[in-house]
């Protein structure tokens, strides 16, 4: 068994250079199909699948090899090494989670195979100067800066933080605190919680007593619904609820109109933004999967389009890297260019959007050049 396995590996390695021209170009996709992040992972799977189909229809043939990391960095590394050394891919899209992306990114220069990170938010990933790491989405600090800029003109004075004790939660709030300090916002409450608790009322009651103008929230999927239900229950009514991505940007959350109305959130993408093809993508996605696309789906879709387009013009990892570095795109995620700025390397300076839920529907409200609607402030029940 072991010998057979070894010989398969050996054969694959030997055969690689021969196959390179005959077979279509191979691309890898590392995603969290199982594990804690599986729910978001599914959105990425769908987005990527749509991109692949579309490229096929255009006659661009690539072979996509999908790998699951279960949200575990060790598995992500195994997946990347399998893709690179055994399957012979010339580029990889993924992984989804920040921890997995961090680990894989740190090895990419060793294997010299470009990695395009579609949706992981941790700043570190593109701040270490890795030549083979590219990131499409905006990093964690933009979530808070765009939200605060959106409400700055209303001159809020105080802010409270309620967030999950996760990497994304803690990183985002850290940058939010820096941004708040610049704006002169006073912090009146800081409630970090462990995910999945049935009762957040005590934390919310503390926030209510501090009477903040802004409540800044970072929560995952269903926790967001739970928190907002309990906030309504105890009558927490700030001037604005600011949700940083994740749980506050899902269709499931918006549908809970009783609690989600007028909640403001930061997102990488909306379906009513005026970027080319955004609305059309949303329509096709809905038709195919009978649910609304999340920004993760859009990020994965665009990352996959960029990867496939560029890879089909290159027949080696080195050419693909050069292609990604030099290219520029303008698709459903707006203008994309992997640039070096403010300590970032190969980071797309993606403008994040601010959306507000109005009667169960997300409306883009900021920045003005991308939006049709105006922000509603203050929040009312």
């Amino acid at each position: 068994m072991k010998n057979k396995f070894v010989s398969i590996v050996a054969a694959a390695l030997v055969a690689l250079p021969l196959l390179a021209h005959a077979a279509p170009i191979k691309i890898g996709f590392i995603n969290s199909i199982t594990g804690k992040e599986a729910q978001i992972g599914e959105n990425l799977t769908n987005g990527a699948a749509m991109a692949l189909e579309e490229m096929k229809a255009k006659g661009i043939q690539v072979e996509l090899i999908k790998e699951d990391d279960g949200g575990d960095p060790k598995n992500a590394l195994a997946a990347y090494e399998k893709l690179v050394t055994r399957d012979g891919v010339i580029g990889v899209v993924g992984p989804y989670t920040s921890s997995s992306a961090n680990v894989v990114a740190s090895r990419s220069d060793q294997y010299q195979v470009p990695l395009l990170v579609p949706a992981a938010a941790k700043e570190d990933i593109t701040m270490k100067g890795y030549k083979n790491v590219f990131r499409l989405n905006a990093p964690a600090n933009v979530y808070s800066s765009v939200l605060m800029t959106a409400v700055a003109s209303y001159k809020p004075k105080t802010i409270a933080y309620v967030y999950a004790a996760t990497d994304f939660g803690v990183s985002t709030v850290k940058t939010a605190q820096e941004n708040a300090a610049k704006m002169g916002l006073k912090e009146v409450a800081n409630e970090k919680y462990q995910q999945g608790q049935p009762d957040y009322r005590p934390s919310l009651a503390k926030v209510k007593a501090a009477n903040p103008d802004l409540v800044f929230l970072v929560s995952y999927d269903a926790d967001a619904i739970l928190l907002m239900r309990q906030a309504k229950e105890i009558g927490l009514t700030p001037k604005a609820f600011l949700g940083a991505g994740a749980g506050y940007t899902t269709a499931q959350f918006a549908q809970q109109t009783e609690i989600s109305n007028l909640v403001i959130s930061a997102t990488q993408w909306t379906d009513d933004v005026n970027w080319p093809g955004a609305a059309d993508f949303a329509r096709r996605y809905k038709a195919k999967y009978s649910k609304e696309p999340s920004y993760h789906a859009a990020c994965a879709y665009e990352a996959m389009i960029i990867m496939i387009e560029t890879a089909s013009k290159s027949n080696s990892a080195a050419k693909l890297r050069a292609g990604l570095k030099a290219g520029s795109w303008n698709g459903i995620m707006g203008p994309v260019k992997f640039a070096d700025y403010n300590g970032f390397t190969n980071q797309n300076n993606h403008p994040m959007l601010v959306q507000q839920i109005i009667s169960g529907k997300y409306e883009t409200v900021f920045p003005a050049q991308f939006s049709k609607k105006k922000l509603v402030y203050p929040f009312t029940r």
Partner: protein
Amino acid sequence: MKQIILIAIIAGIAAVLPLVTGESPYFTGVMISVLMMAALSSAWNILGGYAGQYSFGHAAYFGAGAYTTMILITQFNLNPLLSMAAGIIIACLIALITGSIVFRLRGHYFGLASIAVAEIVRLSALNFEFTGGAQGILLSEVSLWGLDLNSKNPFYYGMLLVLVVTLGITLYLRTSKTGFYLQAIREDQDAAASLGINLSFYKNKALLISASLTSLLGSLYAVYIRFIDTSAVLDLRLSIEIILTAIIGGVGTLWGPVLGAVLLVPLAEVLRSNVIGDALVKQGLVSETSGLGIFLKENLAHAHVLVYGIITVVCILYLPKGILGLFRRVK
């Protein structure tokens, strides 16, 4: 003596394996996972298998090693080997505290208390600042005597060394006084006590040995992956995976945990990377667009833990000596 030779032969084969397979990071990576789980499960087996003290919180010692090493390297720039040694000290401290609590308890209570201690360690690492909290610790660069730590070989041999040491200690314990006492404790604590065996001393001794080895593996893992957070090194799932590996392989035997790891880790990897589904589709046995094809390609990866569950139930009900028991009717 026979067992020593067997350990030597298997270690020898494992040692030359990377030379035979050539430079294959993926294969070596999977082998590192196999060796790590084999060693973790064998280290757990010293306490769980021989002394009969089923710890459900071994992730705490793994995490103690991983966190101590990472903190000392990233914040104090300490030599990785010294950091690993410090990890053992911290793990032993946690073990002593744990032991003083849980060894007073028996049966159900022992298992439950070991979970509670491990959860307190996990939540503390998640909440404190110096542990990196929820953000974890990322290690950008590490060096030791000019070794290429980007290569997998140092870690492959590191894990192999710890496994051999663990098996050696297990073998020694089996034939030593301590080993007999531990087995007496496993069979009947009251009888052992009435024979004048100092229960608490020997249980703690087994725990300290087990925790030290586990911590060492945690340190190696941390420097190997160069990123840790609580869900990677302190999760209850890890503790349970360690136990299941030993149980499925054969608890309380020298080779059971190794066999468990050799079978289960590649199985998990095969399911994760969906080799079976892909192969069936490629061979044309199953159409990619058929219901079965889609199920195999999209859902089989989900089945990895399900398979663990089924194997566990089958083992407990039908193979109390684990898979090793199939080969050896008589122990």
